[in-house]
């Protein structure tokens, strides 16, 4: 960046370059040939080192027996992948248990995270006094990090001291539910907290989408005698289709990458049943130092998500035809 600033400063002091390059190459084409690359360079360095290289490097690591603490990293081909698929390897059960946990969480949370925020957005989708306040209140949990909401809900859901069980007890319901230590309650907790935490985010995206639907369409439907439900089905939903696809895709990805909630709230319990894929990957790679196997898990996981995303796009495109 220093180069560019210097070049800029030098040129600012110098007399204008007499318009000679300008005349030849047009007003947006002036300047040195290297200029675009100088503008791009600082970001490009970051992108190449921490965005693009890791993709290839990750595949490379996954083909080696790569212990972070040992100097020798012998090439093992697809051996690390084979371990993930062969039931007599030490990692097999742990790996597929984490896939199962992630799948359960994703399947339970995504429908709620697609539908509940849509309801909130519809509630807020007209001007009334206090609208901005309510929108901010619904969104507020999302600006907090997973560390904060994780500690907070670990406390609220504590079986003995937690507010949730105490409130339930006060209204005569069972007050000893093991929210963070036993199935199926752990799933209710993880999904519930995630909905509470992130649904404001999706609601804001829906709101923007709703505001892009022309008011005339609603007017026309009303003139045709359509009731509220008809208008929702025939005007709102079709108008939201691209936004729905976006919300669905990003929500699936976000849910599949769940880590902090189970790390902090259920801490994997019961047993290791709520240990997710991302947790398993970092544990294997950065706690047990087996980067090769962890990289193989990452690649396999990325491929799984790619397949889900493609299926998702296909389904929606199909329905559009």
């Amino acid at each position, binding site marked *: *960046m220093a180069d*560019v*600033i210097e070049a*800029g400063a030098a040129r600012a002091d110098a007399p204008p370059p007499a318009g000679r390059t300008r005349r030849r190459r047009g007003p*947006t084409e002036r*300047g040195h040939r290297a*200029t*675009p*690359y100088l*503008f791009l360079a*600082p*970001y*490009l360095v*970051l*992108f190449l080192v*921490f*965005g693009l*290289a890791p*993709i290839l*490097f*990750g595949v490379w*690591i996954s083909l080696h027996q790569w212990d*972070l603490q040992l100097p020798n990293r012998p090439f093992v081909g697809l051996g690390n992948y084979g371990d993930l698929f062969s039931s007599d390897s030490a990692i097999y059960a742990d790996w597929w248990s984490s896939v199962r946990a992630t799948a359960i969480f994703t399947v339970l949370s995504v429908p709620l995270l697609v539908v509940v925020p849509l309801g909130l957005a519809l509630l807020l989708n007209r001007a009334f006094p*206090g609208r901005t306040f*309510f*929108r*901010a209140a619904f969104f507020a949990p999302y*600006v*907090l*990090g997973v*560390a*904060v909401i994780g*500690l*907070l*809900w*670990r*406390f*609220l859901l*504590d079986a003995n*001291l937690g*507010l949730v069980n105490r409130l339930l007890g006060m209204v005569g319901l069972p007050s000893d539910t093991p929210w963070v230590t036993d199935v199926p309650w752990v799933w209710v907790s993880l999904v519930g907290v995630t909905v*509470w935490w992130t649904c404001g*985010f999706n609601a*804001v*995206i829906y709101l*923007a989408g709703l505001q892009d639907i022309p008011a005339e369409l609603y007017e026309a439907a009303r003139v045709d005698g359509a009731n509220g439900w008809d208008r929702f089905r025939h005007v709102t939903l079709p108008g939201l289709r691209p*936004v729905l696809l*976006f919300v669905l895709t990003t929500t699936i990805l976000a849910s599949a990458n769940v*880590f*902090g909630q189970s790390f902090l709230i259920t801490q994997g319990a019961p047993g290791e049943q709520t240990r997710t894929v*991302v947790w398993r*990957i*970092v544990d294997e*790679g950065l706690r047990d130092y087996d*980067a090769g196997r962890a*990289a193989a898990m*990452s690649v396999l*996981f990325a491929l799984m*998500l790619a397949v889900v*995303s493609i299926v998702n796009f296909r389904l929606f495109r199909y329905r559009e035809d």
Partner: protein
Amino acid sequence: MTSVRRVARYAVLILITAVFVTPLVWMLLTSLKTYDDAQQDPPSWLPNPFSAYGYDQIVNNTANPVLRWFVNSMLAASLHTLLVLATASMAAYALARLRFRGRKLSFALIVGTLFLPPTSLIIPNFVIAERLNWIDTLTVVIVPGAASAFGVFFLRQFFLSIPRELEEAAVLDGANHWEVFTRVLLPLARPALATLAVLSFLTNWNDFLWPVFVLFSPERLTLPAGLGLLQGAYVTDYPVIMAGAVLASVPVLILFVLAQRHVIQGVSRSGLKG
């Protein structure tokens, strides 16, 4: 709308607001309780007495230097935000306004990584950071995250929406690219830059997974990474743990209240462009 329906609407909205806000209020109230007060059954809503016990534990704690974590987080999030703004705006200018060989390819590559879950790069990025000797330094939570494609993509779209006439006037006055960029485009892009700044700060301040695994020394942790230690050290001493959580929440909640428009706009625009 009839008045009955209006009342019903507000009742529903207030009920939902309570669901979203009560846990946050409970966090604040608990942080102001004494240890015994927080153990009461049934719970007292208001602290009795109001106590600085939790905050006192946090401030005078040598094993868990929470204030140091706070300063680390503030430094990391601020420097990360500056880095993102500087690099992403320059790259976005090149991609939106300049013609050069490789422009389409670089844009395609950058946008392509938008669809990649960042968690899948954690292992290789750890190995790269280790080779750079960045592990357990603040650099490792400032720099790698700035490779995210979002900022470049977001600003490029904004630059493309600015009419070129304004720049052409500056060019006729003899301005070069750097001057056009800094004196014309950046001032016009101020709202987009503010949005990106707020989102970058929030993301970095809240980041948990990466700092937990790349920072080890107690004095080098960021606040979210440190909060996990606090939970381990205080277990059910909830006033202390909640005081830590409040400390981690206050800056982002203030930022959200002050820059609500930017946060909401940034989020909704990211949705529409996808």
